[in-house]
């Protein structure tokens, strides 16, 4: 026990003598979480508050184009600029001056109306409801119309999808309303009399988890702080592995190998200190989320009633990160090996773990791989606590995996060291 405590004390002294290193350990994660949350929060606000200028080429000049124009205007997301030429619009968008151009084809309104009339008349004829004096007109061949969309090549796929979905929904509504109107006209009702209610019958409501009968509504802080706290926690593998490699290069490890001390105790001392560093990092992140975020216009991080469980997840995530650092430091021979590998590996684990892109939208194979990322287990643990109102039993699978990962990586480190230095 004394050897373990002496090892831990040594690590504290070494860390405290590297003010630059310790500043990076504590300050950079804070800078990271503030920057990312500011960016994500402002993107969210952009979508809601700022209008994106888009071009519309209206070759139709009819009721449909007018409905599309009104729909886009009322969404409050777009500032609509009418432009006469499709070529001009295309050039401006492909140059990146605008995110989107919508080209409405000529006679779209007229063609849609004709098509609907044709269909409605056909249906009424089937039921024998067509007016006797009118002879059934021969079915005119109506060419399908196409609304063209030009996107800035740099536009995000999510933006493209949401615009396409929005326009698709708008067109469906226009078509539905036109069909209702056509039926009404064919059935001889006056335009003012409503026999069909065109308002949507089915609506939806999002039900969110509740905590003490209060809805838990996630905000960008709730998403970002755990994700980037985890990222920072795992970055501990870089300084930790460098610490171990340094011991090898400066000869102190040689002395330790000749001392009557087990490698597990040396690693134990490092584990105690570096896990504590992870918890301090996490605490600073939480403090920033709770106190700094609201003062700079970001949503406040709500940790009420979750603090203990959050620290439980952070502790086990820290253990997993430290285990990985111990393994990397044990295997690497030089800092040139450990530092770039460590940094890149953390980024890969973060990507796989769903820190940047949610796991559910990843391809099937990557989703399977993400199950192997300790960051995925940690992130799920944090999301369970922050967003899913989970209790200890709910996060038990995740923290068990993190603990197993720590045990496995530390065990491999010890065995590797024993084999490498066997006499």
């Amino acid at each position: 026990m004394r050897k373990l405590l002496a090892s831990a004390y040594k690590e504290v002294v070494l860390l405290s003598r590297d003010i630059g290193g310790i500043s990076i350990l504590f300050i950079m994660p804070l800078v990271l979480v503030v920057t990312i949350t500011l960016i994500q929060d402002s993107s969210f606000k952009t979508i809601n508050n700022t209008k994106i200028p888009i071009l519309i080429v209206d070759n139709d000049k009819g009721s449909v184009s007018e409905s599309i124009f009104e729909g886009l205007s009322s969404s409050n997301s777009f500032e609509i600029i009418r432009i006469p030429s499709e070529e001009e619009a295309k050039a401006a968008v492909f140059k990146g001056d605008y995110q989107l151009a919508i080209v409405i084809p000529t006679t779209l309104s007229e063609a849609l109306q004709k098509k609907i009339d044709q269909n409605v008349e056909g249906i009424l004829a089937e039921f024998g409801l067509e007016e006797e004096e009118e002879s059934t007109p021969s079915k005119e061949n109506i060419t399908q119309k196409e609304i063209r969309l030009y996107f800035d090549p740099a536009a995000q796929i999510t933006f493209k999808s949401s615009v396409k979905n929005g326009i698709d929904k708008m067109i469906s509504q226009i078509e539905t309303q036109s069909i209702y109107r056509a039926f009404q006209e064919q059935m001889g009702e006056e335009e003012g009399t409503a026999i069909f209610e065109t308002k949507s019958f089915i609506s939806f409501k999002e039900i969110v988890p509740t905590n003490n009968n209060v809805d838990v509504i996630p905000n960008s802080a709730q998403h970002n702080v755990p994700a980037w706290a985890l990222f920072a926690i795992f970055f501990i593998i870089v300084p930790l592995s460098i610490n171990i490699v340094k011991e090898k290069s400066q000869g102190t490890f040689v002395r330790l190998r000749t001392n009557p001390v087990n490698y597990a105790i040396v690693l134990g001392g490092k584990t105690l200190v570096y896990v504590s560093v992870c918890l301090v990092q996490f605490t600073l992140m939480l403090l920033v989320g709770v106190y700094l975020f609201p003062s700079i216009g970001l949503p406040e991080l709500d940790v009420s009633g979750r603090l203990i469980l959050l620290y439980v997840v952070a502790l086990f995530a820290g253990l997993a990160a430290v285990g990985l650092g111990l393994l990397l430091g044990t295997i690497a021979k030089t800092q040139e090996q450990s530092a770039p590998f460590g940094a890149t590996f953390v980024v890969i684990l973060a990507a796989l773990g769903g820190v940047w892109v949610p796991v559910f939208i990843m391809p099937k194979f990557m989703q399977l791989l993400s199950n192997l990322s300790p960051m995925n287990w940690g992130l799920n643990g944090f999301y369970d606590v922050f967003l899913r109102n989970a209790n200890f039993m709910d996060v038990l699978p995740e923290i068990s995996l993190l603990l197993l990962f720590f045990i496995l990586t530390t065990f491999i480190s010890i065995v590797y060291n024993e084999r490498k230095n066997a006499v």
Partner: protein
Amino acid sequence: MIEIQQLSKKYKGSENFSVKSLSLKVEDDEIFGLLGPNGAGKTTLISMLSSLLKPTSGTFTINGLNFQDNKNELKQLIGIVPQEYALYPTMTAYENLFYFGSMYGLHGNTLKNLIEEHLETMGLIRFSHKKVQTFSGGMKRRVNLIASILHKPKVLFLDEPTVGVDVQSKNVILDRLRLLNKEGATIIYTSHHLNEAENFCSRVAIIDQGTIIIKGIPTDLILAQENAHSLEDVFLKFTGKALRDHA
């Protein structure tokens, strides 16, 4: 007592043995010098004896113990002063010694007093709370030595303990080692300083290409060779004047 039997070491990828079928007996309380040109196998031999390297073949015992069966007991019994400064540069001399002393199971006032006593003897007490990285080569060598003798080892291995130090530091180091030897420690040391070895060692062995060429009491070795006035003459006679560069 150290008993080495047919000890050999061949590094992976190397064509030659660094230590080849070497047998040697070092009695208790001896100061035994391992001398030889660069690449002779001195450091390899000491590394094997101090559990840092696995021998390719052969066996050895230290006070009747071997590393396979009595690893921790043997580690407690021996001390190793490596050629490089095996110290944490950003920690003070005291902190380094406290840590390495703790690894030998020393603690509390016993450890504190031992550290202060050694720092005093080695003329470093004034610098005990200074970072090692600010020390001169001689000061680092002295701290390096203290870190290896705090636990009063029965057998001490030293790999060129006086390399790159001034005369004053060298004298302090050698005096401390003599005292340790008087207190009952067996000392095995390697050096390129043949005059130093001549005066310091009770017995020496000259090693070349992994084998012992000659061994004995320094004065006996000098007297036994025609026209030899010093250990250096004996050394050159047996190892030749050709350069021993390795890459």
